């Protein structure tokens, strides 16, 4: 009689069934084990052999590993730097073709636009303008000076449907203003003999006093009535000598002042010895 624990018999009969179903594979197991054991031995001896050959190069291998690590670190760094400069170039290009830096603020409820100004390749002031987007588009915070008529520009372009057009107009006004202001700065720097009699915050009017070679003062008024442009729309001359403004020379100079930025026009006029 056998004292087997319950279920053992059924387990044994299951094993028997499995062995029978596996068929011919079962008897091969012992030789398979032998095979694998032989393989293990062969690989082990091969490893030992290689290990015996390795020690001289061990250092270098390790060293190379380190170099490779540094390389991979620095190459990762270089990669990031390259990516960064690529993105900066992209951003710069985006700005150049008229795009604005824009970010969402206020948990997505507003957008803030950076409007850069430049004149003759020199970056000047940057202005920021925030628009609330919900429930409708409204101007929120900004640092645009009050002589730029922001509200009337917003009324002219439909803020609700065409924010781009509105921004384009504001940018146009800002750039023109920055350009005119820069010209005034250059006149003061480059032409000390010319006296600036009057200007205004918007730089839409400029009154200059020239000294004509025979010591006659000549008053020149430049009116910039188109605030989206950097060039004057009108030039008036006033002189004690009433004939001077009508002379062909000065008529030519007036046209020049309408076509060329004032600081450069003055350089040309000085060169022609029309003024001191």
């Amino acid at each position, binding site marked *: 009689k056998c004292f087997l624990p319950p279920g053992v018999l059924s387990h044994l009969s299951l094993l028997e069934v499995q062995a029978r179903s596996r068929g011919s594979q079962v008897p091969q197991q012992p030789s398979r084990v032998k095979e694998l054991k032989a393989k293990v031995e062969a690989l082990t001896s091969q490893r030992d052999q290689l290990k015996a050959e390795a020690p001289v190069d061990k250092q270098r291998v390790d060293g190379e590993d380190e170099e490779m690590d540094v390389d991979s670190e620095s190459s990762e760094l270089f990669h990031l730097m390259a990516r960064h400069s690529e993105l900066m170039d992209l951003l710069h290009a985006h700005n150049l073709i008229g795009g604005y830096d824009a*970010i969402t*603020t206020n948990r997505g409820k507003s957008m*803030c636009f*950076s409007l850069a100004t430049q004149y003759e390749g020199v970056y000047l002031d940057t202005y*920021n303008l*925030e628009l609330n987007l919900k429930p409708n588009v409204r101007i*929120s*915070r*900004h*640092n*645009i*000076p*009050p*002589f730029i*008529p922001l509200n*009337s520009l917003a009324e002219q372009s439909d803020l609700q449907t065409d924010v781009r057009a509105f921004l384009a107009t504001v940018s146009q006004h800002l750039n023109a203003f920055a350009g005119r202001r820069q010209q005034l700065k250059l006149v003061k720097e480059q032409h000390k003999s010319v006296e600036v009699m*009057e*200007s*205004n*915050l*918007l730089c*839409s*009017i400029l009154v200059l006093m020239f000294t004509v070679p025979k010591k006659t003062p000549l008053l020149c008024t430049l*009116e910039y*009535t188109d*605030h989206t442009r950097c060039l004057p729309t009108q030039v008036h001359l006033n002189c004690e000598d009433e004939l001077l403004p009508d002379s062909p020379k000065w008529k030519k100079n007036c046209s020049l002042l309408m076509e060329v930025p004032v600081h450069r026009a003055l350089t040309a006029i000085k060169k022609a010895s029309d003024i001191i």
Partner: protein
Amino acid sequence: MDNSAKHLLQRLVRRIPVSMLKSTLDKWERLTAEKRKSLDFTQSKWIITQELVALYITENPNQGMWHTFQLVEPEDDAHSVELMQFKELFKSHLRELQRNVSVKIKKHTDQAVWIRVAWGDGLSSPNHLKATYVVLYLQTPYVFVNALSSKHKPLLLQALTLSTRHQQIKAANLSGQKLTALRDLLMRQYQQVKLRVEKVQAEASANRHRMARETFGDGMLPALQSAVFKLETKFKGPTNEAMTQRDEPFICSVKFSSSNLLESLRHCASSGIASTPVTPMLSSIPLKGRNYFVITDNVLTA
């Protein structure tokens, strides 16, 4: 300069012999050489006194009480009004409204146009010691006024509106002692809105600092000295039934005063004393450039 100081100056100038007046002022050294040169000592002492008072006020604009007005509805040519044109228009419009006035207009180097109006009525000549001062910048809608009586107010405002080629002028609800603060606030001449991409900070205090700076600005803020909130709201209080039951609004006025109110408020926000995001009641001050508000039950107006 208050009235007693003006009278004192008047008496002093009267006492000092004309021959010594120039040298006395030179020694006094309160006026710059340029300003002293502009004084014409051949004029009567009375005129010299007036000029001294005017010089003093323009040099020390942060005194008295300045009230701001805003020009609205510009005509087509409003943006091309230049100084000479404005001077002529203003003087002629004002004289049409009141015969006996003395007007002096001068533009300062910062483009500010200063106007001094001395009012006289039918009987007396213009009183220069009680002159009204106006400061404006052409092509901007804001006008700052000091020492304007209610009698002369409509006249001055009309002359200003017409000569700047606008259709209307309204109170801008911004007043204070420091002209420079009011001007800087409206001209947005301070470091406002630092709008750059900033990483979301996990720390609450960093958030508060950021929101405080975004609302009020960076660096030096215009030295606004007060803000007034006039409440016309229904009384709400659990302990006072009698008041709560009333239908009429509870009228009360809250005034904040500080040597630099905007800085105080910014600090309140960044330190957590005032909750952030900053309530529109406070953020309206720098955002809308006002310091007088009327609050009714539904909406922040006026």
